[in-house]
């Protein structure tokens, strides 16, 4: 992949891969294909799946529905895996989902200090910063400092909960619905829910 500019927000993030690393991966792939150990079309299918068919748009739809359908929200908080599957989202790294709700008094932030665990079926693949050793170590020690760098600092009276994904439980933050969005449809609400707000590093802002 060639380096390219990418805007912030919920754009599907690509990691900039140095050319020599890409070559090494290609060399390994060629060897494995020649030995019959992997099917290149299968590799392409996996890549296509994670580039196009899962992504933060899935999680945004879950959030928008929870904001507009109280009964769904109750189900989502009680059994997130089942409620998310109702919307058609399930699969690897989403087998044991828990949704954690932000309120005026509680702000949740998700990290995987040990590697880069992330709820793929609802958010796609994680952004580079989430996988960085800097985020992995600092989020758990100084969540407020990390959030301040992105732009949002919860007040001193807010309880910040950092969830370290040490097992196979995968966390999705249900961000607060911003004021001034009462007139928006569920689809329009899904449009404003960002990936970063579902990790907990940012809030959703009204358009």
């Amino acid at each position, binding site marked *: 992949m060639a380096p390219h500019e990418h805007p912030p927000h919920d754009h599907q993030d690509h*990691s900039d891969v140095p050319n020599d690393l890409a070559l090494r991966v290609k060399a390994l792939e060629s*060897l*494995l294909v020649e*030995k019959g150990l*992997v099917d290149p079309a*299968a590799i392409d299918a*996996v890549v296509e799946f994670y580039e196009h068919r899962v992504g933060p748009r899935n999680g945004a739809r879950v959030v928008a529905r929870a904001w507009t359908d109280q009964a769904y929200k109750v189900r989502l908080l009680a059994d997130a895996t089942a409620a998310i599957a109702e919307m058609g989202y399930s699969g690897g790294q989403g087998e044991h989902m828990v949704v954690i709700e932000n309120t005026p008094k509680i702000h949740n932030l998700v990290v995987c200090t040990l590697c880069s665990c992330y709820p793929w079926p609802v958010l796609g693949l994680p952004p580079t910063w989430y996988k960085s050793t800097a985020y992995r170590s600092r989020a758990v020690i100084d969540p407020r400092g990390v959030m301040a760098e992105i732009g949002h600092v919860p007040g001193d009276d807010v309880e910040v*909960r950092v969830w*370290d994904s040490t*097992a196979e439980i995968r966390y999705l933050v249900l961000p607060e619905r911003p004021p001034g969005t009462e007139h928006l449809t569920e689809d329009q609400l899904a449009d404003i829910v960002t990936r970063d707000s579902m990790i907990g590093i940012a809030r959703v802002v009204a358009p």
Partner: protein
Amino acid sequence: MGLNAALSAWRKWNLDVFRHEQERIPAAEYLRMSYYERWLITVMSLAQQAGLVSNAEIFSGRPDGSSAPATPPLRPGMVGANRKGSPKVRPTTVTPLFSLGDHVRARIINPTKHTRLPRYLRGHAGEVTTHHGAHVFPDSNAQFHGESPQHLYTVRFRARDVWGEEANPRDSVYADLWEPYLDHA
């Protein structure tokens, strides 16, 4: 990512083995490498250890004839089905040791092999907030010693207890910990 999924279909290793293999990268190298370089090194190492490729083949990039051509287990049509994922919860008849609200302490352990008890929590006391049933136990599974399902709990730690007085008194850290990691506090 695609390469790892395709190779993992051979079932020569599991997710816990994969994570452990990555953790075996010497610290200075681990921190220097990019995320994908770590994955590449890990996949190459596992493929060699599993006998799927030889060291000579890795270096030359060509098959050396030491193994016959194989039939790849992961075909494109299977990718959607494979994305069903693999739940880690297992049935158990073992009574959980801890209940919701129990005060527990993360053990001080220093394993040379894989564990999912982060160093920063070892020795610290917290409160059980959720019980998730019994889950595959990584410390065992990463050594190919079997799934050995153990009860899994979410434990809440006060930030001040873990990080000291500079932490906000309201803040907390939650971690998902298996029963062998915990004692009653």
